[in-house]
């Protein structure tokens, strides 16, 4: 039975990065949309898949798992013979990917999550963004990107010269900011970050995913 992939229908956030990973691995899957507006992710039926009541989740012929970064790793291993290698096998190469993935989770994502909540989610609910939170969050993100500027001056991608999971995980939330007109990723003072970001956003898998949306391959 083909892998079932449960997520919101929009190619963003955690579901978006899993969709991108599936595309990078040329993996077959059946997409099952979950309606966040009606809180389908909090129903007993869905929570049997993910007790935390969050999207995405997968059911691979009876093997159920959740957490987008973990699903990406599983997909990389399962389809190891095809597509892009998302996590290299060498001990040190892998360690450097884990280092960069950890920076995204622990340093970049927390303020980014807060800013996205203010500028994307609250307006959808008719609430005004708190500009103090937005300002503080953007400053933290900018400070982190200043460090990325140094790292990306030494090699093409975050963990070396190849695209890996470490780069892929950045495609979930940063595009929200770009869509809202925040040009933080292409600021002139950070030419290496801008170069890297433009490369990510012009990856054929990303372009196709944004153009066509979440679609079953079968």
């Amino acid at each position: 039975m083909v892998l079932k992939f449960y997520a919101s229908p929009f190619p963003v956030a955690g579901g978006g990065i899993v969709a991108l990973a599936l595309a990078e691995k040329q993996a077959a899957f059946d997409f099952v949309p979950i309606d966040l507006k009606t809180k389908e992710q909090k129903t007993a039926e869905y929570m049997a898949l993910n007790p935390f009541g969050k999207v995405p989740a997968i059911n691979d012929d009876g093997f159920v798992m959740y957490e987008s970064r973990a699903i990406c790793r599983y997909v990389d291993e399962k389809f190891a013979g095809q597509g892009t290698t998302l996590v290299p096998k060498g001990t040190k190469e892998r360690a450097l990917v884990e280092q960069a993935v950890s920076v995204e989770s622990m340093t970049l994502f927390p303020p980014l999550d807060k800013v996205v909540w203010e500028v994307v989610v609250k307006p959808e609910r008719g609430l005004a963004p708190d500009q103090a939170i937005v300002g503080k969050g953007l400053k933290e993100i900018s400070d982190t990107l200043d460090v990325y500027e140094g790292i990306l001056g030494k090699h093409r991608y975050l963990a070396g010269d190849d695209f890996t999971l470490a780069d892929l995980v950045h495609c979930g939330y940063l595009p929200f900011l770009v869509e809202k007109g925040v040009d933080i990723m292409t600021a002139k003072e950070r030419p290496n970050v801008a170069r890297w970001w433009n490369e990510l956003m012009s990856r054929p898998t990303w372009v196709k995913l944004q153009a066509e949306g979440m679609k079953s391959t079968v």
Partner: protein
Amino acid sequence: MAILKLYSSSVTACTRRTATVLHELKIPFELIEVDVLSGAHKTPEFLKFQPFGQVPYIDDDGFILYESRAICRYVAAKHPHSGLIPTDPKAIALFEQATSIELTNFEPSAGKAGLPFYLKKLGWRDDLEDVPANLEILDKKLDAYEVILSKQRYLAGDTLTLADLFHLPYAGFVSLGSDIMTRPNRPNVARWYNELVARPAWLAYQDGVKTTTEY
């Protein structure tokens, strides 16, 4: 081959996490104290090794690595017999799910509740304002943990992995000021938590991480 060098404060959370895993794996290491209270981790010399100005980082015979969870993964990968990272493909996936649970469903609220208790204990800062709201968030997350841990002994399955050990610093710190980890309505969380904090590797550095050359 040179001894693994751990550059950090002896008491900070991520150093406790790293040292606990080094101890579990019986890896000798030298702690080189970084005086974070005086900003030693923000100097140009430090930033050359850890550009984000955070502790810890390691120097393993010339190989520099930072991010405590990445360090733990690296040393566990060098000791595959430990089982702290599984090798079976589905077990690995469930392990990755569990490590992701820790960082997205535990750390944000447990960190924001636990760190203030810990800093107060160290005498570094006394500000518990953010604690109640974060304990409330953590409380709901632990209900999901109870569901998971009622079916299996540890977070990734029936054997201990890094995913469980990653919880230690903040689970321990939260308990300095709250009984949230051991409430009777979540007997499986309590069972799992009590087992973790009784581990010698966690208890070894209660008064701070120190150079450990013999086990």
